[in-house]
């Protein structure tokens, strides 16, 4: 670049994209904090309903999802490493694996959701999950849905927003993956690194969602 150098090198030593991503992640932490804070409050006041509802969830599907997501975090980190080394082929491989994991996660999530929507509450469940209140016939979604009780409202809210984050992460990933096949290849390590930060954050949220929604309620 000749002439002016007004577009300075990052003063803080962290690339713009990465720094912006960190600032955005701080914001994301606060976003989920709002949910978690509300969750703690309402869990304390609805303990029975929460226990009974958590038992309805399929913790094995969630375990699969946990492993898939952790795995995708690894492949993401590796793909960043490979791109920094300039090894586009391995970058492509690991990025592809990450996308695959993300897709598996979404498929499992869809299976889980549709299981809920197809689940019709029986008398016993109405008693325990809804304190005897009959389900709302006007509910927008069938079966078990956010209007079933506060626990399921949180379940759909938190996992739903998490899934939206997964989808939002997959879109640029697919873009990078496809781009890496083109003639020019893909060589923006900072962008991949920033996206990696985001992806790890998505993983992080799941690491907390998994125990608080699926695990830490006694099964009996």
């Amino acid at each position: 670049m000749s002439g002016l150098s007004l577009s300075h090198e990052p003063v803080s030593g962290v690339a713009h994209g990465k720094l912006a991503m960190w600032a955005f992640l701080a914001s994301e932490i606060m976003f989920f904090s709002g949910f978690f804070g509300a969750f703690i409050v309402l869990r304390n006041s609805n303990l029975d309903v929460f226990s009974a509802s958590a038992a309805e969830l399929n913790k094995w599907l969630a375990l699969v999802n946990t492993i898939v997501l952790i795995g995708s975090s690894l492949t993401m980190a590796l793909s960043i490493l490979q791109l920094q080394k300039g090894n586009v082929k391995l970058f492509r491989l690991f990025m592809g694996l990450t996308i695959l994991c993300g897709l598996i996660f979404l498929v499992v999530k869809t299976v889980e959701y549709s299981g809920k929507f197809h689940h019709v509450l029986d008398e016993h469940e109405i008693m325990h999950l809804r304190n005897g209140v009959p389900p709302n016939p006007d509910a927008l979604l069938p079966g078990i849905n956010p209007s079933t009780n506060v626990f399921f409202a949180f379940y759909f809210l938190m996992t739903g927003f998490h899934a939206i984050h997964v989808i939002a992460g997959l879109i640029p990933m697919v873009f990078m993956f496809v781009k890496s096949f083109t003639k020019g290849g893909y060589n923006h390590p900072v962008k991949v690194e920033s996206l990696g930060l985001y992806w790890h954050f998505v993983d992080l949220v799941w690491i907390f969602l998994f125990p608080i929604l699926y695990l830490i309620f006694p099964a009996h």
Partner: protein
Amino acid sequence: MASTHQHDDAHDHQKDYIKVIMWLLIFTALTVAAALDWIPASWGDYGNKLHIGIGLLIAFAKAAMVVYIFMHIKFDQKFIRLFIGIPLFLFSVMVFAFTALESFY
């Protein structure tokens, strides 16, 4: 430009990552195992609390590993820790006030 030093010790990173993923999987197994029905019902509320304690402790340990190694907090500039520290502080303020909301009625 962003990471000249990272090229040099790339191999180390790879090793780190593998180590971390092993631990993450072990912890996942542990947390699922802890969620099984092993606490005697006679422990009552303490059993529940123990249950929650273990679950959250493991979750925090896993999260710390992801943040530290995968997200490179360990290797990056120190001030980046603020981007996690400040929100966590505000979250704790929030939780403190929210739980006080219940203790009265």
